[in-house]
């Protein structure tokens, strides 16, 4: 190795050390966490269906749950109340209101994710995955986005065609 190459190699090594040192500045106090540790929290569902749990739901079962657990805020049959309207609504949402599942929501998976993590409002995360699938199926059927007897599961939910899905514009594409 020539003198010059040797210096260059030393320089690269020093840079690598410096980079390593910069990363090592933190005290590295994070503790390893395993998938089984994470199980209760690992609830993000993605539009392609990633992380949907096993099981399936039916609108008929969901209708009963909806009446018991959801209608006090969202109104009978999703017509709205103290909380937002979920079913029907004007053909197009506007600044006057009316964002509903049928006329606005871009992805059906958002329903499962949000109901499971946040609903019912006064007892969040109290529904089983099965019940979340049932209520999801009920709301999709009530909005006429699936048939009354269609089964909703990890495979079928991401395939539900949401009418408004192509009407979104990324505001600042260079920030993504």
């Amino acid at each position, binding site marked *: 190795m020539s003198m010059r190459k040797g210096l260059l190699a030393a320089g690269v090594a020093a840079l690598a050390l410096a980079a390593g040192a910069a*990363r090592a*500045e*933190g*005290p*590295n*106090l*994070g*503790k*390893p*966490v*395993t998938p089984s*540790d*994470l199980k209760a*929290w*690992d*609830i*993000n*569902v*993605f*539009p*392609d269906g*990633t992380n949907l749990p096993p099981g399936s739901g039916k609108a008929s079962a969901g209708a009963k749950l909806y009446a018991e657990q959801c209608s006090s*805020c969202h109104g009978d049959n999703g017509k709205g109340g*103290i*909380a937002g309207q979920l079913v029907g609504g004007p053909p*197009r*949402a*506007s*600044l*006057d*209101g009316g*964002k509903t599942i049928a006329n*606005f*929501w*871009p*992805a059906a*998976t*958002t329903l499962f*994710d*949000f109901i499971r*993590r*946040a609903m019912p*409002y*006064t007892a*969040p*995360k109290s529904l089983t995955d099965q019940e979340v699938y049932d209520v999801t199926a009920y709301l999709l059927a009530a909005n006429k986005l699936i048939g009354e007897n269609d089964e909703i599961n990890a495979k079928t939910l991401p395939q539900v065609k949401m009418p*408004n899905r192509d*009407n*979104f*514009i*990324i*505001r*600042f594409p260079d*920030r*993504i």
Partner: protein
Amino acid sequence: MTRSRHRRGANAGKSVPHVAGNGLLDRRALLGRGIMLAGAMGAGTAGSLTGAAAEALVDGPWSNEVGDVIPAYQTASKFEKDVLRTVDNPKNEPRNSRARTPHQSLKGIITPNGLHFTICHGGVPDIDPAKHRLVIHGMVKRPLVFDLEALERYPMVSRVGFVECGGNSAPLFSNAPIDADVQALHGLASCSEWTGVLLSTLLEEAGVDPKAKWLIAEGADSPRLSRSVPLAKAMDDAMVAMYQNGERIQPGQGYPMRLWLPGYEGNMNVKYLRRVQVTDQPALTFYEARTYSQILPDGRAYRFYFLQEVKSFISSPSPGHKLKEPGIYEITGVAYAGTGRIAKVMVSADGGKSWAEAALQEPRLPKAFTRFRMPWRWDGGPAILQSRAWDEAGNMQPTREAFVALRGQTSKPPSVLGFPSQHFNAITSWAVDAKGEIKHVYA
């Protein structure tokens, strides 16, 4: 009020050059040439408040007795009891709750902690900090969990910056001006010094997969509020904030820790942060897929707006204040931009016909409130006060007319508490009438 007092007040500031219509004075009167304005103000106000010579000065009872015990945690004087946030869900009904900052009573760039705006989507959680955990997992080499005690040992940074709800100023989407004050219209924005650990420090420890592009941040509140955040923002300036203006973050701000994304939509600054999942795709969570997607007049909608764009508003004088007599007043307010520093603020007193440059109070920090000031001689006649800001990138705060042409407005006025759309950053107008009363108008 007598005619002579009127004249004395109206003459105040005559020696200071007028730089724009309806009495705007040279901002330099506030800076290098302050003496001239001070002299003018003295001439204008000394006799005019009472119309008589100064009264004989007397000791107040507080000067002749021992004061109170010093409290362990000081709160504001009882005479300031009306300087409060307005709360829109005082009975904690099963819906969102908001508390708005009283900008009309504040004069600096830092919002006092108890007056920082708060929005909760499931009430304020009562989190035991010893039991709180922050997990980083997903597309990382080493999924990790941190507790508060561990995070306290990490290198911290402090930075001043604003947080603004994406829905702040939403009443200005109304087709007709809503009669409300600056707190009701713009109270969902506040500014603090935040201290915590850079999220990039923790992500580097976990070892982010080069194919990752997003992270999903989640809170420990009852909706487990979740938002997708571009990894680029996370690595740029995102902070796991634990302190607010020097003390632990308030419960309404995310105690014991929140995600702070300087300059980005408030709802993304996930409070009670408990989990960060690194991914290659966004989740289209409820708040980004539905609530914080903004409908446009043609029926399409924006997604991933993120940025709080350049904006300003006048906090004083503003509705609820009353100008008691003609004379010199200071027009002041805040300007801010999610892109960086404020470069310039212009003020108008004639509804935008003429403009003059306001003085910008230092420090002028990026992605933080910048206080602006403008001396003004009110002649007792009608005036329309406006402010307009520019950021350092050259972005200009739009007029309301130009803004709603692109973004739309309602067909009838909504509730002042409603959110017809979001990311309103256009000019606000305050009309001053001959009685000195101030009202929100469109101009």
